[in-house]
């Protein structure tokens, strides 16, 4: 199930059989993966899948219950201090001193490291020029998130952890953050990214792992993940109660039937045959199929196939 990292050499992250329990909840249940140097690796999954727990263990913020975690060749549990000099961290919630300005916060974090990028460069890079003297409590959600990413880059890190970096951003801000991630990749920086946006994972990640309930369900390149499971097209329409899944499964070419946000998704090798059967069936029932559409399988379909539910649920 696991594919090897793209490039050779020592991986920047190596995780083996990682486990973490909170009370009765198995937050991380035997996770293993590797990230190669220069790679953008994504952890994709719904809230509560265990993504943040994994990231925080790798950042040295949480102690795992078991497993091996090596980051930049450093055993995270033994020498977290050495590690923290070389990684950049953006928490899921931008944690900022509310009464300090953008420039002040950047200068403060810069002072924690012996070397790094200047606050001015980061302000320009993250397009915060107009906000440099604004107190962080007065920033919009997207601006706070951009500042949090800027803080993650203040030490010019070899490896950056971005935990849901575009949550709360409008589409324009999201695209400009994607440009930043691409620029990081171009400069050879490795990135571990968590997201619950399919599009973000598809656009940014060299490889990704799909997670649910503390486990990695599937891991690989985006194209691989899709083609490994789906040679089929997806035919989607709003659910009709009188038309059960068992019936749809008997239509020509249909390989499986799933549900997604009130819609039925039928995966099929025979699009005309399936649509013909749907129309015949609904016609007989005296209803019309609403929002009928055909598309190629996407990451969303992989997720639906793996977990039995949509990512936004």
């Amino acid at each position, binding site marked *: 199930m696991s594919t090897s990292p793209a490039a050779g050499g020592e991986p920047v992250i190596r995780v083996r059989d990682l486990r973490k329990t909170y009370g009765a909840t198995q937050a991380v249940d035997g996770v293993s993966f590797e990230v190669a140097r220069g790679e953008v690796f994504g952890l994709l999954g719904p809230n509560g899948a265990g993504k943040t727990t994994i990231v925080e263990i790798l950042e*040295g913020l949480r102690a795992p219950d078991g497993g091996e975690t090596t980051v930049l060749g450093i055993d995270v549990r033994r020498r977290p201090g050495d590690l*923290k000099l070389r*990684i950049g*961290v953006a*928490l899921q919630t931008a*944690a900022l001193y509310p*009464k300090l300005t953008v420039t002040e916060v950047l200068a403060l974090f810069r*002072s*924690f490291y012996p070397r790094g990028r200047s606050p001015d460069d980061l302000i320009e890079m993250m397009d915060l020029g107009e906000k440099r003297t604004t107190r962080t409590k007065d920033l919009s959600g997207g601006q706070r998130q951009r500042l949090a990413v800027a803080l993650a880059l203040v030490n010019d890190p070899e490896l950056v952890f971005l935990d849901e970096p575009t949550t709360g951003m409008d589409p324009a801000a999201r695209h400009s953050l994607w440009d930043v991630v691409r620029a990081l990749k171009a400069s050879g920086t490795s990135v571990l990214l968590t997201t619950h946006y399919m599009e973000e994972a598809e656009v940014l990640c060299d490889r990704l792992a799909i997670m649910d309930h503390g486990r990695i369900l599937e891991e690989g390149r985006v194209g691989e993940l899709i083609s490994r499971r789906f040679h089929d097209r997806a035919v989607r329409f709003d659910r009709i109660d009188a038309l059960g899944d068992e019936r749809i499964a008997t239509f020509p070419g249909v390989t499986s039937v799933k549900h997604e946000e009130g819609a039925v998704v039928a995966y099929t090798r025979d699009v005309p045959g399936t649509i013909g059967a749907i129309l015949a069936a609904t016609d007989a029932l005296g209803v019309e199929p609403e929002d009928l559409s055909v598309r190629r399988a996407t990451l969303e379909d992989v997720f639906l196939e793996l977990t039995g539910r949509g990512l936004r649920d």
Partner: protein
Amino acid sequence: MSALRELTIANIRSYLRDRAAVFWTLVFPLIFIVMFGAIFTGGGPSVGQYGWVDLDGSAESGALRDAFAAQANIELVESDEATALASMREGDLDSVLVIPAGYGAQIRSLADAPGAPATIAVYSDPSQGSATAEIYQVVGAVLGEVNLAASGRGPTIVPDPQTIQTQDFSFISYLVPSILGMAVMQLGIFSSIPLVADREKLILKRLSATPLKRWQLVASNVIMRLLLAIAQAVIIVAVGAQLFGVEIGGNLVLMGALIVLGAMSFIALGYVIASFAKTEDAANGMTAVVQFPLMFLSGTFFPIDSMPEALQAVARVMPLTYLSDGLRQVMVDGTPFNPLWVCFAVLAGFLAICFAIAARFFRWQ
């Protein structure tokens, strides 16, 4: 070290931009001083009680007594010197005037030929600047009249200033060190609120992901609050001196040491609060709950000896009692409630206990 400096500056900036924090730690104590000072020093002229000791018994000394007695704002109490000085020490008299034997003879000789003026001894407590000024104003007014009557021949009577230490000192000089103690206490325990807020906003967690050491984080907080404590002390002492003439005598090093030790003890108490308060609101509530008993049951506004027995027992376990007691002793030579070394020892012990509790229970995330 630059990280520590930058973090301290960041803390100071955050503090100065937090109006509520500035009010409680810097303005609130001043309001107390000005308010109580106005109540207890204003309200029209009070009648001063002056001891009158006449060792001469001549017609001239009698005339001088009548001149003093004619002053509206003083009342003369005649007695022997030992009794008068004793009751001034006890605080029953504001001043004692002693007319030396041979006073009458000297005044008479001055009427015939110029010579050294006669002297009368004027006792005052220099630790009470405003009271001393008032005494010399009265004495100056009376002697001025007498000397004017004997005009043309230079002064016939001059005051001979004598100092004495009195036990009872004015309420405002009691209040200024007490308020400073209270302000240091507030400054310390209010450290809990930004600390809990930073934890709640995940700032402490974010800092844990940097190479910053925890001791640097704690040190930056402590340094910031110690600087504030010193600023507070300067402001409070200056206001006390300028508005109410409270003069700070005593040992500045001991005073500084008490302020630093007191501030550290109450900062440690702030960390204890932060160890148990989950949210900023909870920290606000717990800080208030801790603050008010400390403020009112530690002899801040009235001497502990004048409190009921049961409350005296409470005051004895209040750490602020020992800070304020020590500050009064060091700053205005106040009556010790405990020996100074006990004040230091209790504060140091309290610091150690709070430190141990915070070290055990404080959570960074």
